[in-house]
């Protein structure tokens, strides 16, 4: 996937006279991919447990509306809440919705496709009902920084500091094989340099945008959860063989429920990123996002048959999908032709990747 992504980027850079690889566009790309990337990380766990969640786009729309409704004048209640309270309430709500779906799947043993399809309908409708279909705006200026817009980047010194801290952590973890750590260190430093190459509104370096940092933190967290904790181990065991997991004494239902709840919470985070970025909550937000998210996870090596997948892969998958979109608009390809080209490139990339993996064995 990484190799295919590199090829794609070079190709897009070539046809766009290098604009595609300009720091500004790369930063845009990362910001644009962050909401889908955050949800894809959670989707990895749900799919790895042999389930699926189609509701996340609607949950994003609904919780986005709630977060906005709680903080704007004349929103849900007479007195608007401060934005951190609204944000926390929204994410908690999204987590509860995920748990509600998970409960039907895990305890009532209904097929997750149908349960979450129902969720897709319910929360799309609910998003509309929250505000009677109105767009809720404007949102608090401090809140909109989360979206990475004006003032939504952390500046050059903080960016370098974070990059340095991350490099140190990687080096510490890999001190036995320092050469293996080199590519990761190089990538980190490159990312920081790119982020700092974009000028902010005041002319100095903008630095890393907040949504990208959120994505990084989520990806790291889900990666750790998946590979270093009992919960993650059990998720993959369930996906490999639900019966074996049950017989081994794993609390299959509890684990399944928690995977859905986690994805729900991450949809809430994505809702925050989306509304903050837009500076508003609209009732069509998140429509059809579920397909993009599942595609990102699957592109990143998650198997719909369960038992395999990684957060890092999902983030790569999200970048992949967004690179195609981003690049095509950059080339001013009309939307119909864009869809055709994206579809064809997608097949070609998956084919190349599958072949590469097979040959590597």
């Amino acid at each position, binding site marked *: 996937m990484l190799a295919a992504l590199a090829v794609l980027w070079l190709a897009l850079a070539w046809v766009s006279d290098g604009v595609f690889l300009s720091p500004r566009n790369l930063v845009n790309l990362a910001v644009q991919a962050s909401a889908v990337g955050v949800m894809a990380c959670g989707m990895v766990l749900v799919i790895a447990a042999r389930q699926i969640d189609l509701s996340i786009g609607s949950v994003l729309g609904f919780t986005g509306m709630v977060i906005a409704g709680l903080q704007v004048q004349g929103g849900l209640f007479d007195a608007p809440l401060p934005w951190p309270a609204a944000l926390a309430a929204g994410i908690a709500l999204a987590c509860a919705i995920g748990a509600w779906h998970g409960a039907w799947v895990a305890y009532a043993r209904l097929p997750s496709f149908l349960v979450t399809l129902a969720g897709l309908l319910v929360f799309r409708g609910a998003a509309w009902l929250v505000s009677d279909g109105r767009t809720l705006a404007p949102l608090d200026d401090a809140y909109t920084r989360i979206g990475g817009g004006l003032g939504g980047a952390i500046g050059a010194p903080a960016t370098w500091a974070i990059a340095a801290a991350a490099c140190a952590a990687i080096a510490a973890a890999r001190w036995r094989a320092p050469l293996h750590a080199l590519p990761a260190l190089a990538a980190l430093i490159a990312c920081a340099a790119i982020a700092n190459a974009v000028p902010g509104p005041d002319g100095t370096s903008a630095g890393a945008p907040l949504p990208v940092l959120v994505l990084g933190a989520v990806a790291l967290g889900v990666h750790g959860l998946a590979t270093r904790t009992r919960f993650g181990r059990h998720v993959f065991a369930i996906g490999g063989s639900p019966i074996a997991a049950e017989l081994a004494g794993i609390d299959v239902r509890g684990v399944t429920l928690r995977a859905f709840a986690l994805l729900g919470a991450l949809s809430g985070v994505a809702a925050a990123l989306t509304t903050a970025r837009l500076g508003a909550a609209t009732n069509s937000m998140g429509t059809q996002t579920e397909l993009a998210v599942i595609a990102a996870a699957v592109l990143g090596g998650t198997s719909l048959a369960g038992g395999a997948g990684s957060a890092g892969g999902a983030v790569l998958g999200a970048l992949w999908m967004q690179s195609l979109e981003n690049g095509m608009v950059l080339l*001013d390809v009309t939307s119909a032709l864009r869809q055709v080209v994206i579809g064809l490139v997608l097949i070609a990339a998956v084919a190349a990747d599958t072949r590469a993996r097979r040959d590597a064995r």
Partner: protein
Amino acid sequence: RASAAASATSGKEVVVGVSWSHFQEERWKIDEASLVAGLRERGARYLSADAQSSSEKQLADVENLITRGADVLVVVAHDPSALGPALASARAARIPVIAYDRLIEAPDIFYLSFDNRRVGRIQAEQILAVAPRGRFAFIKGSPQDPNTEFVHAGQLDALRPAIEAGRVQVVGDQYVDGWLPDVAQRVMEQVLTRGGGSIDAVVCSNDGMAGGVAAALAAAGLSGIPVSGQDGDVAALNRIALGRQTVSVWKDSRALGRAAAEVSVALAGGTPPEKIAGASPFTTPRGVRVPALLLEPVAITRANLDRVIDAGWVTRASVCRGVDPGPQAPPACRAPN
């Protein structure tokens, strides 16, 4: 089946069936509210169906409304040319049809609307008024939605001379799937990147997408570049007051809803279409002559925000939220001195 007229005159309550195209934008909710209010005043019953942007579903909806005993149909066509069978069913049941907001090219309908092509023209004219030359981008609606083309045609009507004279260069021309604001935002970011981070005006087809465009411009430090829209969304009017959007073409949906209530009850009562108050004959692009009642869209800009406030469409507080009430503020938001 007894004719609708007969049932209406026999004192039975009139049943008005409304087939909506979708409810994705704020305005339809307002259309619905005023239409329902109008019907209630006249003692008529309201039935509705929402096609969720699908021609197939709209066809089924119309059938269902007929099954449920509608005496007159109000149709917000999702795709006017794909309604043939629905009109045939209505004709077979002798039920009058009002084409609401969107023109249906058929001989036996009553057309009640704002002119969408005119909406596009007003958008472009207003943009040209503040930015007579430079690099323009078009952010159009969903490629699946026929209205997209009507609006865009109007925009081109107004801009064509400037484009041909070279005063205006088109540096981006993109559809936005589903009219989604977040997609519009991403598209705008790409158009900006492509143009090296500068642009002179954005001709955007509705207010929802204009929100995404404004956010993209703000993030690039370009707040204040002319942007158009339509629908008179509260958020858009607020942006106009804040100087982040130039115009929102306001079609007072309440007037349209009220007119629909009036016309539908009249038609159900047996009034011939030509005799409806204010109706005039209208020739469609394909040359069909239908009776029509056309309302004027209004361009809302910084200068005339009072108009929507005075009409009770929105409150002053919501339009002027966050606006510094000093002398720089738009007239509607200036502190009374």
